[in-house]
């Protein structure tokens, strides 16, 4: 079929450029109808700045650029998938898709046929490619497209795509994800953020109020001890930080770095961070060996093991106070509290295959006078005060059961819905018009 929507020749012909500066009316008259229509838009007065601007816009509107950007995006997405064999999905997302440039490691480029080497190939990242595609699309509409019935599908479709890209931007910038983890009977009024572990040094003398200091783990650097910090009750030196770790089943005292606390009885080992291609998407469980020293005197208070895997408190006395030392995830306090009443883990009869997970929780919000029971299960989340709670996982512990809810706040959650509806509608109209055109011609012939 002859393309009813064939774009104009990509390279602007010299007369057309002239036409923009409105100095060659003859040439203008010889332009095809559509070219003429769009060239009405720039102002007729000769303004060199505006000329340059429109020339830039026209260059940016090129379909060749669109195709090139698509090709680059395909390469980026492909390697962004391969990179997930080595790294976690969040690492890859920030390095590849939410960045302007990315260094793709050579062994990833060669699809892991060689061993990792410290060489990378620079490549445009997701923000850059997305931004350029957006600019390209907007420029194309400023210069090339004319509003008409025939083009209505494309207009809606491209409008939807612009909205979709903005939505991904909003999500990337503003969405917050966290976890709410509790065992049966436990009441929780905070949300964990597993991507942001922190060292918590807490004074728990008053059970009602939590008072203390939290140190984000990126400060736990073996090369940079934290000394004489006015917030901290003691100096902290980091012996080793492990972004992901496992508890050893049996204690191995040989070469144990810990000299005090739980570390004398338990030991952990470093494991690689969870990768995006793992079939079980578990959260990384960080640990660290840290040495505490008295402020000013530098007296050694001992080397401690702090770990997300350790639940029991570790008390350290310093400056006349007792401090509880722990490595936990960053917490956001909530105005409501949630208690896990029941955790169902159905399996298909006679098998170990999970059929359904469901948590029955009691939600108490004193501010709004709310107190009710809710059942949250797979594929049926709870939406409450701007947050959404999803049943994410469940684990059987000794004698009890642990339920993990994924908690999300995303102000742009509705954007994909609206934008995708537009894109699909646009495609239906556009391809539909073509199809009817084609069929009517087929019938006529």
């Amino acid at each position, binding site marked *: 079929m002859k393309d009813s929507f064939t774009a104009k020749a990509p390279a602007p012909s010299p007369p057309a450029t002239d036409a923009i500066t409105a100095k060659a009316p003859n040439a203008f008259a010889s332009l095809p109808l559509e070219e003429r229509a769009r060239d009405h838009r720039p102002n007729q007065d000769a303004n060199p700045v505006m000329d340059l601007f429109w020339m830039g816009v026209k260059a940016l509107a090129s379909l060749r650029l669109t195709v090139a950007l698509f090709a680059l995006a395909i390469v980026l997405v492909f390697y962004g*998938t391969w990179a997930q064999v080595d790294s976690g999905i969040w690492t890859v997302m920030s390095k590849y898709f939410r960045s302007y440039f990315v260094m793709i490691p050579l062994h990833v480029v060669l699809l892991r046929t060689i061993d990792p080497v410290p060489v990378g190939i620079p490549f445009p990242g997701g923000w850059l490619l997305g931004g350029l595609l957006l600019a390209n699309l907007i420029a194309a509409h400023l210069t090339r497209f004319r509003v008409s019935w025939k083009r209505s599908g494309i207009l809606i479709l491209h409008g939807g795509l612009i909205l979709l890209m903005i939505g991904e931007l909003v999500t990337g910038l503003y969405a917050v994800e966290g976890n709410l983890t509790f065992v049966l009977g436990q009441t929780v009024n905070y949300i964990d953020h597993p991507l942001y572990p922190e060292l918590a040094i807490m004074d728990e003398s008053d059970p009602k109020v939590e008072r203390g200091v939290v140190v984000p783990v990126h400060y736990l650097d073996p090369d940079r001890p934290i000394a004489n910090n006015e917030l901290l009750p003691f100096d902290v030196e980091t012996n080793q930080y492990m972004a992901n770790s496992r508890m050893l089943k049996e204690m191995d005292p040989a070469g144990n770095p810990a000299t005090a606390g739980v570390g004398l009885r338990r030991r952990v080992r470093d494991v690689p961070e969870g990768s995006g291609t793992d079939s079980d998407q578990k959260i990384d469980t960080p640990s660290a060996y840290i040495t505490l020293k008295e402020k000013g005197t530098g007296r050694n208070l001992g080397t401690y093991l702090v770990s997300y895997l350790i639940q029991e408190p570790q008390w350290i006395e310093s400056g006349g106070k007792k401090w509880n030392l722990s490595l936990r995830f960053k917490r956001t306090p909530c105005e409501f509290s949630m208690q896990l009443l029941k955790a169902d883990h159905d399996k298909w009869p006679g098998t170990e295959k999970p059929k359904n997970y469901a948590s029955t929780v009691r939600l108490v919000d004193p501010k709004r006078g709310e107190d009710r029971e809710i059942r949250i299960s797979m594929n049926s989340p709870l939406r409450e005060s701007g947050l959404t709670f999803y049943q994410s996982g469940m684990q059987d512990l000794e004698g009890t059961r642990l339920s993990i809810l994924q908690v999300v706040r995303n102000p742009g959650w509705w954007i994909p819905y609206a934008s995708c509806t537009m894109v699909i509608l646009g495609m239906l109209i556009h391809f539909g018009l073509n199809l009817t055109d084609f069929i009517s011609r087929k019938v006529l012939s």
Partner: protein
Amino acid sequence: MKRLYLLPWLVLGIAVLYLASGFMRPAHQSKFDVDAFAVLPVQNGGRIMPMDTLARTCLIILSGKQTFVDDHDMDHPVTRPAIEWLLDVMVSPPDEERLDGPAHKHKVFRIDNDQVLAFLGLKARPGLRYSFAEFSPRMLEIADEADRIDATEEKNRSLFENKLFELAQHIRLYKNITIWADPRVLPPLLPDDERWMNLYDAKLVMERIGRAVPGFQQYLGMLSAYGKGRAGEFEQSLVGYRDAVKQRAPEAFPKADFEVLFNRLEPFYKCMVFCVGIFILGCLYWMLGYGELRQAAFYLGLFTFLIQTWAIIGRIYLMGRPPVTNIYSSAIFIGWTAMGLGLVMEAIYRNGFAVVTASVTGFSSLFISHMLISGDTMEMLVAVLDTNFWLATHVVCVTFGYTATFVAGFLAMKFVLLGVFTRALQNDGIATLSKMIYGVICFATLLSFTGTVLGGIWADQSWGRFWGWDPKENGALLIVLWNALILHARWGGIVKQRGMAVLAVGGNIVTGWSWFGTNLLGIGLHSYGFMSGAMWALIGVDILMLGVIAIGALIPTKYWASYQPLRPSALQLPAKPKAAPRLKPA
């Protein structure tokens, strides 16, 4: 050639006969009424299935086949159906000391790793299938080794460890049948209980309630009669057992009957054969030019499509689920939709291209599905997939998108290969085929985008993240981007007919990656498990596609046979085709 008008009907007749051959009795006949046994419903893997499916599934897991060779009588080995193997296993004693059970000598365990064979002290032999009796002396060592491997992380296992662990699991499956832990043969006594009882559960229940569970004695009697070779007694007990089950679970029987019929007909396997037939007829049509050949191919295509439709509806009825629930069903679904799409295009263009493309796409995907059978194809779904709404919308739509991209890719392969090497595309062939490719790519873009978006909505509904950049999502996105690239390159005049065809062949690589490659990443290139075969197949297909792309992209059109100017003689060379019958009024 007057009689040629009968050809389409002749072809159809042969196809019907071939399909009906599923009802034929095997040459070997058991003296027991195994057919009645085959339709008995049991619970296994979380669902109700007939004994026949259980037998076939287990045998496929162990040996990769649905039949086995009984070489008890060395001089006259006979091929016997899975159901007889299952009966033999059920009456074989469970302990390793007594190897006189009939099933222990059946060579059904496929062991293809030479290290595992060495570990068991066995020698490689043609077929690589071994009997339980052959490796049972090493049972303790196998168990110890399996325990050790179980403690190692899956990622760090070697090929030998994976294979040995697999064998240990196969042995467990086998032994579970010999000790009567599997399948669950007696329906629950309480109405709201979903869990059927095996013989142990039933015994415990009987001790607790102090009376017999109906069917228990009859079931035991049936097995004991089989073990002793008494056909009459077997039948009698079977009827008693069946009636007892029927009283408490009458709804299980119609489905079990239907499933046995489905198993016997092997509709998807036969459709694969039909696809070969369509391909041959289509190619003959191009060579000889008789319209009847194209008509025969078209009719056979319609028949195949009908059988596929019936079979897919049958699976929906049996599972109570939308058609695509796992990678096996995605393959048969692609086969079905490719056939449908091809027939619609054939009805429009009537040039044989579409129907042959449909047969190639259909055959490939059905063949892939056949290779993917590694157990029950109607297995239960893990929790997150347990939603009919999203399975029916997102999964179906994405799979449609795969089909359309594949069909465009195969049409484009035809464009390149026929264009370069033959004169078949002279006249308006190039333009027609190009239009077809273009139309299908438009369709593919729409479907793959919609499918991907629906997946995003599902993800947003179930874990609050519309887009997570995970491998499977990225795979779907690649298809959308690739199709969008082709369309924009065409609209921008960057590519024309030839360029678009070359790009469309690339669509096969992209879709193959999205469908299979991302799954292979998941279990890691560290593990050398069963999917590694699929990986090599994928690489092979990709190399083939790259070859076609190279031919299409590197050879200038002036050397393409189909771009040569028509020679006067060429106009007369093929026997003048009779006007193809019109399928709709002109």
